[in-house]
Each structure stands twice: as C-alpha cells, then as structure tokens.
C-alpha cells in the first residue's frame, strides 16, 4: 500500500508540488504567527524593561530613616543583592549631582544631566545591553569612583573618565567610566555606583530619599515581595516602604499583543482552511481524471477500503513530509535569528515555538485528512461495473 501511495504522489509532480506548497505556507504561517506574536511581546517587554523594569516591576518609595551612614548603605546593598523573592536595586536621591562639560568657549561649566546613583543589581531589574565595557561592580568591589553612561552621554566621556560636579560647588571629581549601555532613554544619563560614591566622594553623599525597584521572581506574589522588603529594611534600619506601586507598563500593551497574536493565528488558520479547500478541489479533480484507473483497480480486486486508504494515504503522507520540512526549515530560521540581531537589540534570542509547531503540523495532517475525505468518498462510490464499459 505504501508503495502505491508513494507512486500516487509521483503521478503528477506539479499538482503534488502545488499541494505541498499550499500546506507549507499554512504551517509556516501558523508557526510564524506565534513566533511574531512572541517576538513582538518580547520586544515590547524588553523596550519597556529598559525604561521601567522587567515585567512585573514594583517601585517602593522608602521612608528613609538613615542611609547616610556607610555601614547602613553597605549592609542594605549586600541584603538587596541576595533578596530572595526576586531582584531588587536601590536608587538613591541625590539631586545636586551634575557633571562638568565643555562650555563651548574652551572652558568648563556645570551641566545638569540625569545622574542616577544606583548599584550593580539594577540591570537585573532594568536590563540594558552593554555595548562597550562593563556594568557597575558590586558594592564591596569598587576600587575607584565608577560610572556607566548611556549612548547619549558618551559625548561627556574623555579618556575613559567623566567629571562629576555638585551644584554650586567648584570641585571637579573625575570618575572612571566602566562602560556604555543602551538604556532606551532619549537624554544623557550617567549611572554612578552608590557604594563607590559614598566611599570615594563622601562630601557628595547627601541622599534625601531612596527608591527600591523590585522584580519578583515568577510565581512570587507582589505582597510577599513587599513584606520581604519591609522586613529587610527593618533589619538594616533603613526605614520602611511608604509607597508600593507597579512601575512597568506591561498591562497597557499585553492586551494589544494578545489581540495581534490572535489575529495572526486566525489568519494562519484561515490559510490552512484555504489549503484544505484547495486540496478538496485538487483531490476531486484528480479523482475525476483517475476514475477509469480506479475502476480498473476495483475490478482487479481493490476493496473500497484500499481505494480510500490510497486516496487519503497519499494526502496524509504528503502532509507529514511537508510538516516535517516546515518544522525543520522554520527551526533553522529561528536558530539563525541571533546572528541577524544587532548587538544592541533589546531582544533575547527567541526560543523555537515547539508547541505551535506541533499544533501546526497536527493541523496540517488534520487538514489533509479532511481535505481528502470528499475525494475518497467519491472514489469509493465508483461502480466497478463501469470498468467494462
């Protein structure tokens, strides 16, 4: 029977090829639909994560009692680095920090750019691709006053350093620039290592507030994360959480992405349906062409079941071959995506949507089965007596 089925596929290579192509398009469209939806979601999440944190991120404003002391800050940083329910990063409010920049007449002037005093944990909450150098080092590691700048702040870096300033203070403090990141911000931003600032420029360490960004691990309830943070702050003696709000914007785009993904999948399903209708059409035309042959086969002893198996089998075998080819080709393309992505892409290399591929392959086989039923019924209804006519 297998031999007959394979022979059937070779009767009309063009027809087989076109049927295969329509199946291939249907399967790839379904896989691509899921992949595009997933990549779109990942992209929006990644862009959003740069600006307002991974999904979900909570912003805790701390009612500060004391973060002026070095020991308190060090202990707080160490505890935040090992925060159990997720990732947590501190952002200290030091409003009078600025930089020295060229004034245009050859001199220097204080330039008020965004200066964020933070820690090494920040990228675990607000990821940003490092396109040059490295991120800030851990609290107990910095050997010097260190910073990281975004692409827009690169202009202020000279010989690997940037000169920090305080409003109304003539002091010029050079700080090493560890690296350059893509943080998604449109303006220059300078990230200063809080522990290093406190250690190497204690005069500037006058925090008047503290915000802790928390990204709970998957499955961790945000109330649990808040309680854990409260306990941590109480242990360290750094105050308590006065305000706890979700700061990422995922809620705003998740529905849009879900809708778009649904739209793409529905389109792909429609393509599969068109493929099935095409198969029925081609199948019926094929049976019309082959009716004399099928009558001869019936006269020679083929049962209705064997005729049906032959008609359905060739269609299903073709769909299996095409499904396998479509999965292999799409997997290869997904595997190549990381090589095609730019270095500063906010996206992680996508994972192959195995579930979608399995569903697409299953849908293709089901489509071929349904699409070949009508031709098979027509074939088994042929009256063998006509073989002698």
């Amino acid at each position, binding site marked *: 029977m297998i031999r007959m089925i394979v022979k059937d596929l070779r009767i009309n290579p063009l027809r087989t090829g076109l049927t295969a192509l329509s199946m291939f398009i249907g399967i790839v469209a379904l896989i691509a639909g899921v992949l595009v939806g997933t990549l779109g979601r990942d992209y929006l999440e990644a862009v959003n994560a740069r600006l307002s944190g991974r999904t979900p991120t909570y912003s805790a404003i701390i009612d500060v009692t004391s973060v002026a002391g070095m020991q308190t800050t060090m202990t707080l940083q160490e505890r935040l680095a090992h925060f159990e329910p997720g990732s947590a990063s501190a952002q200290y409010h030091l409003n009078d920090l600025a930089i020295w920049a060229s004034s245009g007449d050859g001199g220097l002037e204080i330039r008020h750019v965004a200066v964020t005093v933070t820690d090494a944990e920040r990228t675990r909450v607000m990821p940003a691709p490092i396109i040059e150098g490295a991120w800030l080092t851990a609290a107990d590691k910095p050997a010097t006053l260190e910073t990281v700048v975004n692409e827009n702040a690169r202009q202020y870096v000279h010989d690997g350093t940037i000169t920090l300033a305080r409003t109304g203070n003539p002091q010029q403090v050079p700080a090493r620039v560890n690296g350059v990141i893509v943080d998604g911000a449109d303006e220059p931003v300078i990230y200063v290592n809080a522990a290093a600032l406190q250690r190497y420029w204690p005069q500037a360490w006058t925090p008047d507030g503290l915000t802790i960004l928390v990204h709970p691990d998957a499955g961790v309830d945000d109330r649990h994360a808040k309680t854990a943070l409260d306990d941590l702050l109480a242990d360290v003696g750094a105050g308590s959480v006065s305000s706890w709000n979700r700061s990422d914007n995922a809620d705003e785009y998740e529905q849009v992405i879900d809708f778009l993904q649904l739209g793409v999948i529905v389109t792909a399903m429609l393509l599969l349906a068109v493929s099935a209708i095409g198969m029925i059409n081609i199948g019926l035309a094929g049976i019309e062409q082959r009716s004399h042959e099928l009558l001869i086969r019936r006269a020679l002893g083929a049962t209705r079941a064997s005729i049906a198996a032959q008609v359905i089998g060739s269609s299903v075998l073709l769909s299996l071959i095409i499904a396998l080819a479509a999965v292999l080709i799409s997997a290869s393309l997904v595997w190549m995506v990381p090589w095609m992505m730019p270095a500063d892409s906010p996206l992680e290399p996508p994972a192959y949507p195995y579930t979608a591929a399995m569903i697409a392959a299953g849908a293709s086989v089901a489509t071929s089965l349904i699409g070949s039923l009508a031709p098979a019924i027509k074939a088994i209804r042929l009256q*063998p007596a006509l073989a*002698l006519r």
Partner: protein
Amino acid sequence: MNGASLIRLNHLSAEVRLPGGGRLTTVNDVSASFERGTSTAIVGKSGSGKTSLASIIGLLNADYNGTLSYDGRDCAAWNDADRSRFRCRHIGFVFQNYSLIPHLSAWENVALPLQYRGGIPMRTIRRRAVRMLHTVGLEDRADSMPSRLSGGEQQRVAIARALVGDPDLLICDEPTGALDTETGDMVAAILFRQVQELGVTLILVTHDPQLAARCERQLTIDRGRLS
C-alpha cells in the same frame, strides 16, 4: 473440460435506470451454467446485454434479481468487500481497450492483483509478474511504461495481469476489438494457449464470429435474453 460446474445463473435479470426515469432491462431471465475449464463465447449485437451479463458474472455488478452461484455458493449474501476479495483471488479480466494503468510499468500493472491479495512479499510479486510476462513473450519489456508498448503488447500485458493470480475464471471483453487482424490473431492465440494450459474457465464477450468460433460453446444474447 472436467465437467464440474463453476458458475450457475438461475433466472438472472438486471435493469438500468434511464436518464428520463424509465428502466431498461439489460439481462432478462438468464439461466446458464459454465463448466470448469471450458471456453464460452457470449455473442450479440451492440446493446444486446453482453457486457451487462459479463459484469454480473464477474461480480462487478450486484444489482440483479435471480441467483448467481460460484462452486455452489450463492453470491447474493456477499458484501462489496467479499466480492472484491473473490474477484482478486478467482477472476481475471481482460478489457477491450487494454486498460493498463499509464503511470505503472508493465510488471507493476501485472502485479496489481497480487498486491491487492495482500501478504505476498514484493520480491515474490515481482518475480511472479515477470514470469507471467515471460509466458506472453514480454519479459524484456517488464520495465516499459504502457505508452512505450504497441497495442498488441499492451493487450498481452493485460492478459498476463488477468492470469497472474491463477484465476478460476477469465472474463475477456472484446480482447481483440482494438487490434488489427494479424495482431488480434496473435493475441487470441496467446489467450487460448494460456487458458488451455492453465485450465481456466473462459468467458469471452465478442461480436467477432471468428473469435467466438474458437470457443467450445457459443451463447447468443439478444435484448438481454440468451438463445
């Protein structure tokens, strides 16, 4: 001829529905028997009911009244699958216009009845098909496609296909009708020789009196009735 009755027809009648809604009697109260190993020609004019009778005897048409029995077994109770299996094992057909399957080679055409029988390894099937082609003088054309064969060669392939399964009954519908006289004579000679050697019961449907005369018995059919 061994005298044992292979097929019995008892008051067999069949009708076809006409496009206008009326009915046409194609086989009218036919009773006959066909002995094992004999050759019988069914002759008659076009539209006399020859092919209709042959299709009933060949179990291709189950829409009839009366009784048809093989080896004493009434076929009326058989379903479509039973009839297909019986055809596959016991009946060979030679059609008027060769009726070879165009995308199968000569040996693959000959092999079809054995493939539908099931349970025979492909190597054995091919060996038997090529051997049967050898008996009709076409072993060197085993891999040729039907389009590469002459009309006479195609009909010899069709004879090989009809005989490859060692059938008890061979039904030939105008086996030389599409061939010129010389080629037709050659094909008929092969057909009768094989039938004689294998002891097959032959029912030959023809309007060719010379071909019919080579059979042991002639039945004439007119408007569905045997005379």
